[in-house]
């Protein structure tokens, strides 16, 4: 099918990043000099978010405040904050771009990853809150040897965070320079400074409220685009779809599945990656520790699922509306009749088509705010992996003071911010489409199996968990490097040694098999003790007795 775009866009993977497609489809800049409306609105967001940070910084005293907002966020607020973490600007623009290019199959990135939400609710939410403290490594440390599991999970978390961060930063830089008419490097530095301010000073409290504001802006912006487009078609959704069929070169095929993931192994591998990876993302799961108890954790999932599901329903309209209203309008096309700025701009152009230049400015500012907030969420996840897991528990054997943990968290946040800017500049104009499959492969084949087995299977031992997780991490990265994207396209060997773009199906199976096999063979005294401790852990996970209480002040 439409050969270049679908493959490039595929990797944008909705939940994740705006990054890839810009990087792969370099097109003429979409704007004409600085967009003052967009800049003005973004400045308003900056002022509000820095106000929040200032307020939050005064309330951040302990490590619990810094890493888990003192466990005092309500279920509703947390649901919105999770929505903010989950929906990057790619959830709006990436899915719209996929539908714009390939039609129906783009919606697979709405429906399948959304399935992660009910799964999290039914299988994980209560138990996670009852077992965890600041990070997902806490859950596994309840009965396993602290040093090996924490080391594995925190290093995997850092791989996750850095992969995600590069994808976000590069995508952001290109998007921002397109929308705002400012320089790529300047955009990187602005993002870097903002996230360091939010995270290093305001910690989890600031990050949560910034995320919350951004979620409200994103959901209302997308709603406006959707309903303004429907209004344009006299509220007839069939008329909207008809105009898409009339405008798109594929005709009626835009309303039918097929083409995008024609090879069944890739389709299922990609689906497994989205579904399992989406339900074990550390920066999302750590939000379960910011609420007081399991009941509020459940409520957060409920609100998050409501907002995210609603948001995904809007994508059923927005992508097709872009075909109907943008694809044939010369105002949005370049000299060759191709959409200005590439298909990722489809939703942005649509906002101008239905709401004029003022609304275009608003949506551009929302897109910038979205990226900044998502990067901040990733940064605090990375900072907690360094300060709480590696520093306090591995190097200091749990003897670090609260002040030391907060200090290390701040230093980590500043370092990660600087690293993000550096990598963002280093990867400028690189094809980073594959980047986003790294975090998803890691979370589906390392975090998901470990969390799932440790909560549901008595037999898992430290040795099994660490061996399986480490092999899956190494194998996942190796298969990605040897796959068609990096080995074939970037290193120029034509095709990959490993034939599939998404190794998740294989790495998930390998991970589970090794964890179960090694645990079964492990009969050390330590393993026997770990199996015996399962019952107590089980009671705690089910009842919350012995769970971390919220900070008292």
């Amino acid at each position, binding site marked *: 099918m439409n050969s270049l775009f679908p493959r490039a866009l595929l990797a944008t993977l909705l939940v994740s990043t705006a990054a890839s497609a810009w990087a792969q489809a370099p097109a003429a800049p979409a704007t004409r000099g600085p967009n003052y409306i967009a800049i003005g609105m973004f400045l308003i967001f900056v002022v509000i978010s820095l106000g929040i940070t200032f307020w939050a910084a005064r309330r951040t005293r302990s490590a619990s405040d810094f890493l888990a907002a003192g466990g005092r966020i309500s279920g509703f607020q947390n649901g919105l904050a999770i929505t903010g973490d989950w929906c990057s600007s790619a959830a709006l623009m990436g899915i719209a771009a996929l539908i714009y290019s390939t039609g129906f199959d783009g919606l697979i990135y709405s429906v399948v990853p959304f*399935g992660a939400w009910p799964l999290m*609710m039914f299988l994980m939410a*209560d138990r996670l809150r009852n077992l965890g403290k600041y990070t997902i490594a806490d859950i596994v440390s309840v009965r396993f040897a602290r040093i090996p599991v924490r080391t594995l999970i925190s290093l995997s978390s850092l791989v996750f965070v850095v992969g995600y961060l590069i994808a976000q930063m590069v995508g952001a830089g290109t998007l921002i320079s397109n929308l705002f008419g400012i320089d790529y490097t300047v955009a990187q530095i602005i993002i870097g400074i903002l996230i360091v301010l939010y995270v290093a000073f305001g910690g989890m409290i600031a990050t949560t409220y910034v995320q919350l504001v951004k979620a409200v802006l994103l959901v209302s912006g997308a709603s406006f685009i959707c309903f303004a487009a429907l209004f344009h078609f006299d509220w007839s959704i069939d008329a909207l*779809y008809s105009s898409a069929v009339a405008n798109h070169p594929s005709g009626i095929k835009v309303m039918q*599945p097929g083409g995008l993931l*024609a090879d*069944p192994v890739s389709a299922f591998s990609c689906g497994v990656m989205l579904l399992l990876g989406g339900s074990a993302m550390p920066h999302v799961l750590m939000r379960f520790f910011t609420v007081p108890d399991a009941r509020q954790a459940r409520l957060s999932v409920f609100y998050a699922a409501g907002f995210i599901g609603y948001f995904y329903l809007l994508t059923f309209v927005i992508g097709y509306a872009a075909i109907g209203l943008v694809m044939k309008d010369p105002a949005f096309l370049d000299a060759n009749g191709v959409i200005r700025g590439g298909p990722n701009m489809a939703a942005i152009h649509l906002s101008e088509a239905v709401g004029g230049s003022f609304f275009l400015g608003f949506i551009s500012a929302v897109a910038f705010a979205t990226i900044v907030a998502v990067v901040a969420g990733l940064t605090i996840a990375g900072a907690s992996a360094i300060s709480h897991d590696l520093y306090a528990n591995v190097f200091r054997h749990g003897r670090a003071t609260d002040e030391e943990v907060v200090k290390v968290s701040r230093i980590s946040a500043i370092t990660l911010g600087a690293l993000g800017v550096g990598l963002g500049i280093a990867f400028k104009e690189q094809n980073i489409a594959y980047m986003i499959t790294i975090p998803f492969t890691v979370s589906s084949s390392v975090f998901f199996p470990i969390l799932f087995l440790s909560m549901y299977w008595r037999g898992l031992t430290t040795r099994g968990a660490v061996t399986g997780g480490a092999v899956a991490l190494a194998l996942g990265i190796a298969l990605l490097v040897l796959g068609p994207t990096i080995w074939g396209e970037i290193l120029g060997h034509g095709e990959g040694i490993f034939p599939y773009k998404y190794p998740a199906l294989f790495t998930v199976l390998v991970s589970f098999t090794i964890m179960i096999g090694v645990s079964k063979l492990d009969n050390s005294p330590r393993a026997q003790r770990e199996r015996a401790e399962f019952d107590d852990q089980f009671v705690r996970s089910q009842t919350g007795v012995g769970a971390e209480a919220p900070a008292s002040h």
Partner: protein
Amino acid sequence: MQKIYQVIKADPRFHELERKRSRFGWWLAAIVFGNCLWYMAATAFFPESGFAHLWGEPVAEGAATTWGIVIGFVQTVGFILLVGLYIYRANHEFDPLKDAIVEDARRAAGE
């Protein structure tokens, strides 16, 4: 803490709670998982396979909307409703039972 865990483990209501809750959770998870597989299979095998064919059919004569759109829409709404269903039963049935078990156990353990 050890003692209270022992008391809870010995309580038959705890095992009843656990059985009910996990059976309910697994059923719902299976529904969600099945729907996601159905969606993946439809995109992977359309239009050759018979079960995927429906996804490309218009909902009415002359309509542009296909059943695939309707199914995807219903699935998304359905997932939200399933989450709501779970939280309703968790709050109205599982939580009170759990609270009663924990309260009795605390008393029995002398805390």
